[in-house]
């Protein structure tokens, strides 16, 4: 504990940093191009100290947290600090070489200099709706290798002393099906970091030499706060398991967890989990970190500041080559759906330690990507949408209907914006009745969303979890319904599709129905 810094200065500086991360987010959202970022807010911003520890984050999507940590680490590994100049910015997205969690999330990181040395980094992350690869949207459970998922970017210098490296940028743009949008979104990411750099510099000007010690003290205060939260649950070993949908229809893949709570620390051991899958359901390291940090915070102390101070109270053990620690080049594109199931496994273990605040399993979102020619304006379109499932119940309340769960958090796309932008028409968008588990407190309902193809040549790629294994109830509550993808529901040619499929033809006038899984219930139903 840094005794030289008091609890007041630390809080004041922390509020400053948080304001800066919010300013960066405002700049990013205002200037970005794609609906993904603007309408769905699939982006995040953060500030790191010189050692690469997160010190402040504007919450948009929790899973981004892990990705940004990884990117700053990757830059520090690849570049000699002496070689980094003011005005430089770095890009990275690769889960194995750039600290990313999947390829569409491109991190842009910039150093902040004060009196000639790096004192901090600012970073932001935006979900780009296409970075190449075998499927439009660059994200499909059917990919068998990360090389099929799109352009891999290790930590590279994209801006040198304020000047964009055009050659490198052209490579990134050419590898996307929607290069104009990428250009606009990258510009927005630069603008966000510029805003952050100016404000962090001003903060150091104001607080001078003691700024870094104050920030370090703030992390110490945060750690102490989270240790206090951990010490409220009994020391012990808590074991849980849950399952991803496997490589083939009907298969499943185990996530095994042994949580050890001891002396204000938590150790999450995933030994015994299934080997990595050939399909893109694997969870890369940084996504594992982000999910653990998110669920632990939600369960123990929702208001603890999201920074490295509390991350340090947790340790992760995951053998290489398993579903939660895959090796290059295992595909990982759909990690955010898998992280929903992983989050349930973590919550289930913690629920044993704190039964009065137990959380039942949840239905993770499903992913659907439409692509094809839009005859209305002679363009090729890619529309990436995630559709929420239902959340698990707790002893104190039923599950929330139709929400993104655990580490995921992007918003949906309005129907009226969708139909303006792409040649599809929504036939139905509704709560999926009966999908929440039955119990004393029912599980949250999933969603039904049905699209009609309004043009020729449209194809759809589908990715899901919990189509083979339902979200379990807690305390004796019933499980939620599994998810389904149905082609032409109610018609003679009705077909149930698999939980992961690429490039399914959607002839003009055909309908695809997305039915997302419900959450588990809490407690036995009072009466039948």
């Amino acid at each position: 504990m840094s005794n030289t810094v008091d609890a007041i200065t630390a809080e004041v500086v922390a509020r400053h940093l948080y304001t800066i991360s919010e300013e960066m987010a405002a700049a990013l959202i205002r200037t970005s191009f794609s609906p993904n970022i603007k309408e769905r807010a699939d982006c995040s911003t953060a500030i790191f100290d010189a050692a690469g520890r997160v010190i402040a984050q504007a919450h948009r999507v929790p899973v981004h947290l892990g990705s940004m940590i990884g990117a700053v680490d990757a830059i520090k590994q690849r570049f000699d600090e002496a070689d980094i100049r003011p005005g430089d910015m770095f890009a990275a997205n690769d889960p194995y070489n750039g600290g990313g969690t999947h390829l569409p999330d491109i991190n842009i990181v910039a150093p902040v200099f004060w009196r000639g040395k790096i004192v901090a980094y600012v970073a932001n992350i935006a979900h780009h709706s296409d970075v190449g690869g075998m499927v439009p949207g660059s994200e499909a459970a059917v990919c068998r290798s990360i090389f099929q998922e799109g352009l891999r970017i290790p930590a590279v210098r994209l801006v040198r002393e304020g000047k964009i490296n055009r050659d490198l940028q052209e490579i990134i743009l050419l590898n996307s099906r929607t290069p104009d949008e990428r250009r606009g979104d990258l510009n927005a990411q630069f603008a966000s970091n510029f805003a952050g750099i100016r404000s962090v510099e001003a903060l150091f000007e104001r607080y001078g030499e003691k700024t870094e010690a104050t920030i370090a003290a703030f992390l110490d205060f945060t750690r102490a706060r989270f240790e206090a939260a951990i010490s409220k649950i009994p020391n012990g070993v808590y074991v849980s398991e849950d399952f991803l949908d496997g490589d083939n229809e009907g298969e499943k893949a185990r996530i095994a967890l042994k949580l050890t709570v001891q002396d204000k620390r938590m150790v999450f051991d995933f030994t015994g989990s299934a080997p990595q899958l050939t399909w893109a359901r694997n969870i890369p390291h940084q996504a594992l970190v982000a999910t653990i940090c998110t669920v632990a915070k939600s369960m123990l102390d929702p208001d603890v500041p999201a920074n490295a101070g509390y991350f340090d109270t947790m340790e992760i053990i995951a053998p290489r080559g398993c579903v939660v620690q895959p090796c290059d080049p295992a595909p990982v594109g759909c990690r955010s759906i898998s992280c929903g199931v992983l989050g349930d496994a973590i919550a289930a273990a913690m629920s044993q330690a704190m039964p009065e605040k137990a959380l039942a399993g949840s239905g993770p979102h499903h992913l659907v990507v439409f692509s094809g020619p839009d005859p209305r304006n002679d363009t090729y379109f890619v529309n990436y949408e995630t559709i929420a499932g239902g959340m698990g119940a707790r002893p104190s309340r039923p599950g929330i209907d139709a929400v993104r769960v655990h580490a995921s958090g992007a918003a949906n796309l309005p129907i009226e914006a969708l139909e303006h932008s792409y040649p599809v028409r929504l036939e139905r968008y509704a709560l999926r009745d009966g999908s929440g588990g039955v119990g004393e407190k029912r599980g949250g309902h999933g969603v039904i969303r049905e699209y009609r193809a309004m043009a020729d040549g449209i194809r759809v790629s589908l990715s899901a979890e919990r189509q083979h294994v339902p979200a379990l109830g807690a305390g004796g509550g019933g499980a939620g319904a599994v998810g389904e993808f149905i082609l032409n529901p109610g018609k003679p040619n009705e077909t149930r599709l698999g939980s992961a499929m690429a490039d399914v033809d959607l002839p003009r006038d055909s309908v695809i129905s997305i039915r997302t899984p419900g959450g588990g219930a809490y407690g036995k139903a009072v009466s039948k």
Partner: protein
Amino acid sequence: MRNVWIGIDTGGTFTDLVLVDVKSGNYIFHKVPTTPEDASKGILTGISEILDLARFAPADVGLLSHGTTLATNAVLEGKWAPTGMITTEGFRDVLELARQRRPSFFNLDIPKPVPPALREARIEVPERVGYDGEIVTPLDTDAVRAATRKLRDLGCESVAICFLHSYATPEHEQRARDAVKAEWPEAYVCASSDILAEFREYERFATATVNASLMPVMDRYLQRFENGVRSLGIPDEPRVMQSNGGAVSPDAVRRAPVNTFFSGPAGGVIGAASLGVAAEVNRIITFDMGGTSTDVCLIRDGNPNNQSVREMGGFPVRTRTLDIHTIGAGGGSIAWVDPGRLIKVGPKSAGARPGPACYGRGGELPTVSDANMALGRLNQKTLLDGRMPVYPERARVALEKHLCQPLGIDLERAASGVLEIVNVNMMGAVRVISVEQGEDPRTYALMPFGGAGPLHAADVARTVGMPTVFVPQRPGLLSAIGLLHADARGDFSVTRLVPMVPGSLAGLKDGIEGLRERAEDWLKAEKLDKDLAIHEWHVDMRYFGQNSELSTSFNRNLTEAELERLAEVFHGMHEQNYGYRMPEQTIEVVNLRLTVIVRRPVPPAWKQSGGGESIEKALIEVRPVWFAGTGFVDTKVYRRESLPADATLAGPVIIEQMDTTTVVPPHSKVRIDRIGNIFIDLETVR
């Protein structure tokens, strides 16, 4: 001569009234307790009392302007009318699906808000309009009638009609509205395209449903209020302040109660803007700090910025609103030590009851006001001109027990720390509203009002780097004064998602004509002179593929040349705001907007009665007051009313008045202008 104007602002604890005789320029101020069960009671009492105090008869009243929190309270407390919804087949759950995000990422126990129309009262009917306004499925009016009967049987009082793409073609909604009225003439009805003809269905449906649910509540309230005003003998109908800063007839508010959510704060901002214009201060950020929350708003050249979406009770209500940013911290915010031993301030507030410890009403937890008390910033004996005794010892006990002892720090550090933390929160709010609008707050003056604003303003301004603080004469009554300055104002908009090319001209002109007709109907209904109306046309544009818009004014007689000019303006604005332009990219029109304003006469400026003879005679006492950098120093305390016009003072000083206390730190100078405004010029200190 009906030369008496009255402004009434209803707050949580008190209703503030201000009366001006526009002939003599005399002002009378009055405060009565708010009557929460029916606010009109307290208001009517207040009107009678202030007329008696001023010795005028009700028949002398020429303007009665009212700021109301009725709609806001009804939403926050869920006291809206049972409401039904008739909607497009397949989409009744849009209201509940919302945007599929959790209300809080980390707090798993915060549920989505319960919509005013419950699921069984949301009925689907066959109809569908496409994105281009083409009718895909004709409206089944028999189904609308059947739905109406069912909603009536369910006990609904009000009906929202919410169809997809109704901004493009409102015909189905209009026919459905007529069918509901025909079937059930007493029902309150709101069609989504009437209240908000813009795209994004969840936001439009939520706005329409919340509006429908408030119509019966607002109608009954205004009925009581208007009857009361009439039976007092006041000849004209009252005016009600809207969130857009314009005051309108009770009937306009009956149709669109959602337009009044920020009625009270808007009064303060309009008051601030008018004072800024009078004092020739062109760039102002308002800082309205009360007991539980603080509102900030940026005003440029007398014009507060507008925005179109505000969250209300968890719903994204889209109405034109002055761009007021609210943070949940005020004088009553409670300071506490978190489990990591960090001091936090808020979000919990001691409110009016039990209140800060130093008020002696049973509060035992340390608040921001207690920190001000312990540091000598507030009068150590009484507040409100001697009407309210205070107990500094209780403030010290609360701080000692809850901050000093757990952390092992002294009282001075604890109390100054509480102020530092609350001020940095305020700084965040001021900076974020500035950055969002592409402005540098250091080129603005901070105008504090509300009971606690002037206590904190100089410190907040210094933290942000603002050079000047502008303290109006009656900071505690500025919202009520602002009501007297409100013009009549109506805002109208329509979505037209088309590329900005000559081929879109016909569709755009059609949209413009529709807005013009709506404005004309509104002027007629408001009994306003068409020839005095100022029409301001704005268009929201973006690059094709983007999802947020930039707005600029345009010439109503849209031509190809005007489109070309707008394109150039847009590229320039984009570059200015975001640092780049995309000359090759198609520009897309999103919304057309029309603001209609009919100016009202401005009331005479309030003059500080007399003003004192000399600075010396204004001195109340000398007491130790704490400031950053100096610690406790003996500081002169002056009575504001007794300070002469044009006086100058050097900080540190404290200036007390009935409704507030102004803190002037060291390294600053005070100027008092001819009408009694205080300006604090802050030197830069490290």
